[in-house]
């Protein structure tokens, strides 16, 4: 009898210590990932998901350096080739083992994905050297092969091959309807999707055969989307969730003051700008007028008053840490100078322009637009401002319905050239460059340097080119830079290393999280 009691107690004790290490993270995001298929959409949410359920070949550290994940090491063997050595003994959730074949299969699928095909356009057919070595080939010299490796999350080629019970190909990428990959996953990542009700609740369980033994102790993640800002914050304050992302800026102070809750912020990389349409307005073709506008906009004031200091004043596209960032460029608010420039350009009396901005896409977007409109009135430019929800904004943006349009941009490649390719190169329907250049700014030198940078594999030379582009854009006042948004998360202090798992891409590495 006594013995069995002791045995019973021992079992309980073992169970308790066993449980003490495992923890459950209740995570609230503003929206949940839209699918289980990592290639269905290129968006922050889907990449956050990919980092939980899949692993990239390489990932960024907080300091923006490359960290080996499924790729153990790599080397550039010639200007067209990067040889990647895969980690051995990595298991997919299905039990299959990761081989070079899966990487090649994933790359081929990325090239078929509507959202990723443009990013992977430079890539050619990879060469499988052996089971754990693969040569990633580009069709011309390409300096961003490693950046792109952060987007290659190998998928289980065997698991996703064949047909499902409805007779549809399992590897089909379907955005709006049922597909096998939308509802099933087999990645190598730290978590397995146990159950999922879209828009409601996700249960993610730690993958027992995960290769990285050196990871955090969270064994269950309960992901709930809470779209309402106030409710998300209240849920954290009430202790109903452990971690929220993003934190609405108006609640920063409250969360900082709250006991047992930590606010984590980081300077982000999404730049908020206004584009000045030279095609619609003769006046905006004049560099002096554009400079006057830049001089008239007090972006330091916007950061201080509207963003409450939770943003970094921008004077160029590339944030600090990007190769194209030019340190010596300074913000240019100077009302006297702006008036002077308007006078020189012959527009002392000013003129009237139209402006559009979204009202639910960027942090405080509507307020920022209103502030800029009133700042421009100081140099006699009268602004007719119209704001609208993001669902309507982009069509209007594309149609270039206004003279001045707001756009925020984050470089998917984490590289300066991406800004120029989409925002500043001459718009060209055929090549697709300048797709979001609603200012119609066009400078042959910018195009030349940006294109040259694509095939430059010497990092120093490449940086020089990209910095030159930033300088030209600055001199030309090609656009009005405002600020880089700050990223924000908040978590209870049960989370031990929450500040270490976040990064400027906003892909928290939950696999590394430790909790009490």
């Amino acid at each position, binding site marked *: 009898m006594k013995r069995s009691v002791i045995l019973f107690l021992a079992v309980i004790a073992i169970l308790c210590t066993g449980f003490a290490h495992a923890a459950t993270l209740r995570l609230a995001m503003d929206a949940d990932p*839209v*699918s289980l298929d990592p290639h269905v*959409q*290129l*968006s922050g949410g889907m990449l956050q998901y990919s980092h939980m359920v899949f692993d990239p070949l390489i990932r960024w550290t907080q300091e923006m350096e490359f960290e080996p994940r499924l790729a153990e090491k790599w080397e550039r063997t010639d200007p067209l080739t990067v040889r990647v050595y895969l980690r051995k003994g990595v298991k997919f959730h299905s039990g299959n083992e990761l081989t070079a074949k899966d990487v090649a299969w994933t790359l081929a699928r990325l090239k078929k994905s*509507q*959202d990723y*095909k*443009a*990013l992977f356009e430079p890539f050619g057919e990879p060469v499988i050297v052996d089971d754990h070595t693969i040569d990633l080939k580009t069709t011309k010299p390409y300096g961003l092969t490693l950046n792109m490796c952060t987007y290659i999350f190998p998928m289980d080629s065997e698991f996703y091959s064949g047909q499902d019970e409805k007779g549809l190909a399992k590897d089909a990428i*379907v*955005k*709006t*309807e*049922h*597909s096998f990959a*939308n509802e099933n996953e087999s990645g190598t990542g730290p978590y397995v999707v146990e159950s999922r*009700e*879209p*828009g*409601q609740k996700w249960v993610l369980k730690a993958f027992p055969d995960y290769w990285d033994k050196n990871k955090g102790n969270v064994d269950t993640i309960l992901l*709930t*989307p*809470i*779209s*309402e800002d*106030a*409710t998300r914050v*209240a*849920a954290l*304050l*009430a*202790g*109903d969730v452990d971690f929220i992302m993003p934190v609405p800026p108006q609640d920063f102070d409250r969360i900082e003051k709250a006991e047992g809750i930590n606010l984590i912020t980081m300077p982000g990389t999404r730049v908020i700008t206004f584009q000045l349409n030279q095609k619609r307005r003769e006046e905006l073709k004049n560099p002096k007028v554009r400079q006057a506008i830049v001089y008239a906009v007090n972006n330091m004031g916007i950061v201080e008053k509207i963003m409450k200091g939770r943003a970094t004043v921008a004077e160029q596209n590339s944030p600090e840490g990007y190769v194209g960032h030019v340190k010596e460029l300074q913000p240019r608010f100077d009302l006297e100078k702006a008036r002077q420039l308007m006078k020189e350009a012959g527009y002392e009396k000013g003129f009237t322009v139209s402006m559009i901005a979204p009202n*639910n896409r960027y942090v405080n977007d509507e307020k920022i637009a209103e502030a800029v409109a009133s700042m421009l009135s100081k140099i006699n430019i009268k602004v007719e401002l119209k704001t609208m*929800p*993001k*669902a*309507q904004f*982009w*069509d209007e943006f*594309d149609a270039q319905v206004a003279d001045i349009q707001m756009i925020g941009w984050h470089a*998917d490649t984490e590289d300066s050239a991406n800004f120029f390719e*989409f925002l500043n190169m001459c718009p060209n*329907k055929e090549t*697709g460059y300048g*797709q*979001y250049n609603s200012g119609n700014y066009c400078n042959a030198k910018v195009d030349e340097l940006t294109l040259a940078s694509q095939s430059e594999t010497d990092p120093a030379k490449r940086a020089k080119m990209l910095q030159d582009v930033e300088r030209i854009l600055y001199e030309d006042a090609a656009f009005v830079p405002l600020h880089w948004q700050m990223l924000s998360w908040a978590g209870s202090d049960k989370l031990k290393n929450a500040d270490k798992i976040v990064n400027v891409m906003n892909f928290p590495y939950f696999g590394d999280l430790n909790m009490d």
Partner: protein
Amino acid sequence: MFAFIVRRITQAILVMLIISLIGFAIKQSVGDPIREITGISVSAAEREALREKLGLNDPFLVQWLRFIGKALQGDLGNSFYFKRPALQVILTKAPATLELVFSTSIIVVLLSVPIGIYAAVRPRSWLSRFFMGASIVGVSIPVFLSAILLIYVFSVGLGWLPSYGRGELVEIVPGWQSGYFTIDGLKHLILPSIALSSIMLPLFIRLIRAEMKEVLETEYIKFARAKGLKPGRILFVHAFKNTLLPVITVGGVQLGTLIAFTILTETVFQWKGMGSMFIESVERADTDLMVAYLVFVGFIFVTVNTLVDLVYGLVNPTVRISGRK
């Protein structure tokens, strides 16, 4: 009678067609679903191809007729976000909303009847004045504000009740996840039900009070008093019965208002029912789901109203005749 039924059903079909037309008109101006389902760097050509594939480039009328044709076969389109048939999505969300509406109705009935009667019988007492004053305040505070206040007082401040969601659920029949059978689920129900009932409660208290006061003045009540019946019996059996008729009529109409207000309440409490689903579908420009919701809710209303009319016609023949003239 047959002609009456036919006329009523024709009207119902006409109303449904108009609802779907209005839904479609709204859909056109909500925004572009393609933008929502593609990343921002996707090329314009890719986007155009997808738009063509989903039939979004067709003229308004063609799209509408295609929708009607499919709707007749029970297909209300496909939710872009959920990647499932819209009707199926709505049906999985319906139980959450129904449970919320049901709890709210119980609160409203249990509170409005005694308070209303009390306020009618003792109009001058301080308690009645308090209830009347509070009901003015209650009806004037928008539900999203009272909901947030409730969360901050009872979840964040006092920590008594959970702040969001439905809590632990039990599947009672396939497809029906119920929160009624767990302590946690019931706890989650409290705040949203109170917030939602704050809309209806003042209205019903005032309605019952007014009706009751009127009835208490009538001859038969005076007679009952004179006859020496017990005051309790006069109030609850003779008087209250007669106040019920208008209350029930208004209650039926107010059901629509209640469903409309679930949209706000569900959004604040992140109660994952049809209401929050609708708001999210508008935000995501998930237009097919949005139209499907409008048509679905419209269909329920029209069906209920038509049935009520038909039953009324059976019960009270003058209704049938008045329409003819």
